[in-house]
């Protein structure tokens, strides 16, 4: 058996005294797209932040292996250059940091980790332009400060642009569909699907089955009360949509 791209073993996480993740087990093999569906407050976003290495969370036990390598002791930048990418549910606005400066710094950090030299400005411009055109990102948007004044849809497209440039091994998409209208959803999904290449893995976190019509997963996991309660083929998402989460975890809707 080959090493999975992502393996989460009995992951327990708390914030202050409250346990949020209560023993998550999840395996995403190379090249597969998995979806995590769950109601609000089930711990889905916590899982994405813990994978990316946000400081506010305390991992009390468990392991997270990225391509066989334990990443829990790495800081967020080390995880990123190791090949992990989180598309944020709410991308952060950073006034004063130019989008292009940021993209170049991120790209060069990734290249440096691979032992490659800094990208030349013309090559960089070309790469951004090419990736941007597929996502309907114009140069005006790129001239602004990072995510500042971007609409909800623009922010999500900018996240996918970053993913396209950084070419991660493992991408976690946290509610990438939230705040998107149908047209924007199609653009974003197209961008994501273009990055499915048979080796890159993805973990798509969402509330709604809707996104999974566009980004069709190989496996669907149902998440409830801090752990995976059911896993199955993509049809599981439809079943979930019909029965509601209560049909899986027995709890009433929050």
């Amino acid at each position, binding site marked *: 058996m080959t090493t999975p791209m992502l393996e989460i073993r009995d992951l327990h996480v708390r914030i202050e005294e409250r346990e949020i993740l209560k023993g998550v087990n999840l395996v995403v093999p190379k090249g597969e797209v998995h979806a995590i569906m769950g109601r609000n407050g089930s711990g889905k976003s916590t899982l994405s932040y813990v994978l990316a290495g946000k400081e506010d969370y305390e991992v009390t036990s468990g392991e997270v292996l990225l391509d066989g390598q334990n990443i829990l002791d790495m800081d*967020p930048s080390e995880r990123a250059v190791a090949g992990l990418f989180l598309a944020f549910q709410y991308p952060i606005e*950073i006034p004063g*940091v130019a989008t292009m400066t940021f993209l170049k710094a*991120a790209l060069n950090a990734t290249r440096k980790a691979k032992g490659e030299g800094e990208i030349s400005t013309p090559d960089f411009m070309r790469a951004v332009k090419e990736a941007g055109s597929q996502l309907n990102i114009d140069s005006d948007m790129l001239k602004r400060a990072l995510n500042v004044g971007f609409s909800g849809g623009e922010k999500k497209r900018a996240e996918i642009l970053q993913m396209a440039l950084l070419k991660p091994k493992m991408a976690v998409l946290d509610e990438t569909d939230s705040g998107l209208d149908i047209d924007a959803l199609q653009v974003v999904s197209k961008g994501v699907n273009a990055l499915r290449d048979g080796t890159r893995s993805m973990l798509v976190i969402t509330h709604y089955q809707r996104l999974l019509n566009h980004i069709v997963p190989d496996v669907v996991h149902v998440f409830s009360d801090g752990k995976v309660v059911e896993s199955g083929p993509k049809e599981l998402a439809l079943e979930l949509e019909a029965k509601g989460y209560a049909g899986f975890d027995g709890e009433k809707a929050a």
Partner: protein
Amino acid sequence: MSLVPVRLGPAETTLIAQLHAVGAVAEAERLAAIGLPTRRVEAYHYTDLKQLMRAVPELADDPLAAADVTVSPPALSVAGAFQLVIANGRVQKHGTAPGGVIVGASKGGVLTTRDDIVTRLNGAFATDALTLELEGSVGPVIQIDRRVEGRAGHSASAARIFVADGGSVTILEVYSGSDEAHLSNHSTFLQVGKGAKVTHITVNLMSAKATHFATSEYVLGEDANLRTLIINAGAAVSRTQAFPRFAGPGAHADVTGLNLVADGQHADITMDTLHAVPHTSSKPLFKSIARGRSKAVVQGRLVVARDAQKTDAKLMSQGLMLSDEAEILCKPELEIYADDVVCGHGSTCGQLDDDHLFYLMSRGIPKSEAETMLVRAFLAELIDPIEDEPLNEALTDVIEGWLAKA
């Protein structure tokens, strides 16, 4: 005047003797009577000169008279700038002035009637004043280097600058000197003519042992436009004062400043703006970055006269603390006598935003680089408006150099 005689410290005693030596008897008597300001004097609340000034060095030598004193190049140079030098308070020879620039020198200090101890001491001790008359659109940056040379000395320097109606110019003043415990006190009087556009930048790169005072007084004519940028990066103790006075309607000023303080430093930017006539606007913006055990002070006062209707003024001060032992102190004051104005102030102080840092790092940018990006972002508002490219780069280098020392 106080009935209880003040106890004078060694710094005051030396200053009084020096004032007598230069014939400033009235000033000497006044200082003997009231002493240097303490924190009980509101304008010096955070910069208690009686505490901070322990000793005053001897009056500085005239570099032309003292054979062992040589004038070194400034700590900052800008390509293409026209350079003028004042060393130990004495105006030095200069090269051929560019078009629209008339350089002269006169006796005495700066043109002021301001009742402020630093300004009064400058007036008493400054022997020469550099005078500059500027007309039309002056191409090169005018750089005035205020050097303090030789052994530790007390010196005062002055410049009087007049920008003609419709003129435009960028003036850079750099304070630097030998690595000694100097006491230097510099002043600038800058009159901005009708419709003129002036950028005035002052950079304090004094020795880490020095005590540094600099005061700029501005008079803005009708429709004049002024941008200032104070950068405090040097000296153990510094106090930089900006006193803009709006004398003509339609005038606008962006008074900005930056304190960069590291371990052991105390830097104070104090602004006192007078909106004396109707329809003027100002947007003071100050930032401080403090690390180690240091103190940065920003005081900003907006005074709006009774007749100065339609004044639009917004004062902002932002602090970034890079250590737990750093202190950033901000004091805004609004004194408004008119009833139809828009005036406000705001202040923020904190550390780098964790969410910002996490986002940058989540894209692979190492922590130290992410921090530098965020500090640069914090400062962009101050540096970006400086249009002259070599000057913008030189100022960026000063800041990057300071950041790199962390």
